[in-house]
């Protein structure tokens, strides 16, 4: 037979075998999936009411709840996670944590060093969800095997929850830099004491951590925290200053007007915009001269902010009157059109 034809026939043969192999994988996986689902459904039906009785009704723990196989463990995880995610109750969380420590720890220890990344990640998620502080040391011992950035973040998060004493020094010395969102996720769960501690180390933190810390402080809307944000208004980084101003605006208080007045003449329009937003928390007598100055600002967002914030006070009409006298300019660029009949 012609060599070319033989080659093509071999290629066809290999492709056909590969097709059959893939078809086989899909078919076998489907049946395995069905079998696993049956086991999980059976465990769920057997224990659904028992879990409710134990966690909500405070009944006695029963050995029937202990999962025996990997699929039963997965089913138990689903049940417990649905309680954690939908009910905020420390007693329930404690029971779940106790159960997981007693009956699932060995399983999670094996999974933590699994060759598959997704299984290791799931295990790290469960350590956080079920508060398995008994596995933290094991996590840290095997940190070399948890090399990807996602895993490193999860380990970092675990340390922030369960190793608070050593976490803050770690934050300032860690080589890995996480995204601002990731720092936010960690800081939002911290208690007041730790956050205060972090603020004292502000300059030593990576930039993303600094921004996240400001956001977390601002989000708490605590008047007593304003002085921290005021302290950041002299920071070299414009982003820090803008976020500090934004945080003060979110908290809704001006303790010292003189601290924000220098930003009226800032070359950065975002800082001037934040001043415009903050002025609505001052009294009219205090802020009117600054309103006029900002109403003349070339940036339309700032003019619009003044109009929006003060329309109820009829300030805009007053400013318009002054405008007719040539004191205040009307916005001309990027017209803001109010439409409607």
């Amino acid at each position, binding site marked *: 037979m012609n060599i070319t034809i033989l080659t093509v026939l071999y290629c066809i043969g290999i492709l056909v075998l590969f097709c059959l192999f893939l078809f086989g994988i899909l078919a076998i996986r489907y049946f395995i999936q069905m079998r696993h689902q049956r086991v999980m459904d059976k465990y769920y039906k057997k224990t659904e009411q028992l879990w409710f009785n134990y966690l909500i009704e405070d009944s006695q723990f029963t050995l029937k709840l202990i999962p025996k196989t990997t699929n039963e463990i997965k089913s138990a995880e689903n049940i417990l996670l649905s309680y954690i995610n939908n009910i905020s109750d420390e007693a329930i969380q404690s029971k779940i944590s106790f159960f997981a420590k007693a009956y699932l720890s060995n399983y999670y220890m094996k999974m933590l060093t699994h060759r598959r990344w997704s299984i290791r990640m799931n295990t790290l998620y469960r350590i956080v969800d079920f508060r398995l502080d008994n596995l933290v040391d094991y996590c840290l011992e095997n940190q070399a095997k948890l090399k990807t950035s996602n895993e490193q973040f999860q380990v970092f998060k675990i340390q922030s929850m369960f190793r608070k004493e050593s976490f803050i020094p770690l934050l300032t010395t860690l080589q890995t830099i996480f995204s601002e969102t990731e720092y936010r996720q960690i800081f939002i769960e911290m208690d007041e004491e730790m956050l205060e501690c972090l603020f004292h180390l502000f300059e030593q933190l990576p930039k993303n951590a600094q921004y996240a810390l400001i956001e977390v402080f601002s989000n708490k809307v605590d008047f007593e925290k304003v002085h921290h944000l005021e302290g950041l208004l002299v920071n070299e980084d414009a982003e820090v200053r803008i976020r500090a101003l934004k945080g003060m605006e979110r908290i809704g208080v001006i303790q010292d007007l003189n601290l924000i007045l220098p930003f009226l003449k800032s070359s950065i329009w975002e800082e001037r915009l934040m001043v415009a937003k903050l002025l609505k928390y001052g009294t009219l007598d205090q802020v009117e001269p600054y309103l006029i100055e900002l109403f003349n600002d070339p940036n339309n967002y700032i003019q619009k902010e003044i109009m929006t914030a003060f329309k109820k006070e009829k300030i805009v009409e007053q400013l318009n009157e002054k405008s007719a006298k040539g004191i205040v300019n009307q916005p001309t660029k990027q017209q*803001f059109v*109010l439409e409607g009949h």
Partner: protein
Amino acid sequence: MLTVAVLRLQKKQLLDKTEITEQYINSFNSKPISIIVPAYNEEVGIIDSIHSLLNLRYPETEILVINDGSTDHTQQVVIDYFKMVPIQREIRTDLMTTNVVQIYQSTIHPNCLLVEKENGGKADALNVGINISKYPYFCTIDGDSLLDETSLLHVMQPIILSDGEVIATGGNVRIANDMHMRLGSLLSTQISKNYLVLMQIVEYLRAFLMGRIALSEFNLVLIISGAFGIFSKKWVIETGGYRADIIGEDMELVVRLHRAIREKGGKHRIEFVPEPVCWTEAPQSFSVLRRQRRRWYQGLLESLTVHIKMALNPKYGRIGLIAFPYFIIVEALGPIIELGGYIYMIIAFFLGEIYYEMALLMLLLFIIYGVLLSILAILFEAWSVNQYPKISNLLRMILMSFTEIFWYRPLTLIWRLEGLFHFLTKKKEWGQMERKGISKKETSA
């Protein structure tokens, strides 16, 4: 591309994806989104589409339905169903558009607005939506499409985690014809019995799960489906918004964004996320499919032509040196090369130059290669959703793949060549898309 897709999907196959939803479900950890739904004659499916958006698990959204001068009852259906009333709302003029006539707001769902505007095309409708939107990110979705309830959480994840380095993401689009649905939620997923739809299902799986995953790994995504994409409003406005004079406005915008990224320098990226799903209605008749494919191909050619300077230009990095040549050679010139192959075969046949045994073997080789790619796409889909298909559905899709080369490929080739003709003669028409509605509706109890 296959290897990259395999590695990426296999890696995340067993990952617990609900963790993402729980982490980002609060507004502190997420970013608000304006969902823009351009609608032209969508009275059949618009209510279900809006319901699916209202059902989304996402902390902060606004829904802007842009009625682009529909000639059917789209507007009245939406106003009546959602009890909408006229309101006044600020409209910025960041992007030039046709006139907005009136804005309505739902009294039941205050975050749902309807914008009545003069007809100007999909691109113009999207630009109006951008002008009216108040959030820093917007999501484009077709008027006949449905989103899975956790879609936005998944598709926003790269943007949130990258602190804004990712400026646009696209999600997976799947075909939902003949699936059971109620109030915008899919009750069960099943494969359509229509052979044309079945063929498109296989085609979509190959395109999304092989092509785009691999391209995304290297920041080479040149298309984000207009049916489901998230964009940074700032970047889109800075680059001029959607172009109303181009048929493939979605691809052209993405190419322009890539261009802007390179010209500004910086590490910004555009990614594809396979997990979130948008269910869309695929054409069920040849005439509608023909118009769609013609339009897609014409849009591709227009987008590539407008930005042809990027091709093989080192200034644009991998986009210019790899993605553009790939799209030009494989996607743009592919139909012409394919046509050349058919012509050659016909000429060779009449000249008696065909080596029949070899020709038949080669035909068999290509058929089986196509089937292999289809099976791989089905496997990728299974890994992506961690759910394997029923054997009966698997067999139907494989059988359909066997027949592809005999009818579907030649037809799509002809339609793409029509698109080429329209491109060369500068014809611009969207054509009429017949809407039958995505699914079988549940009758009320």
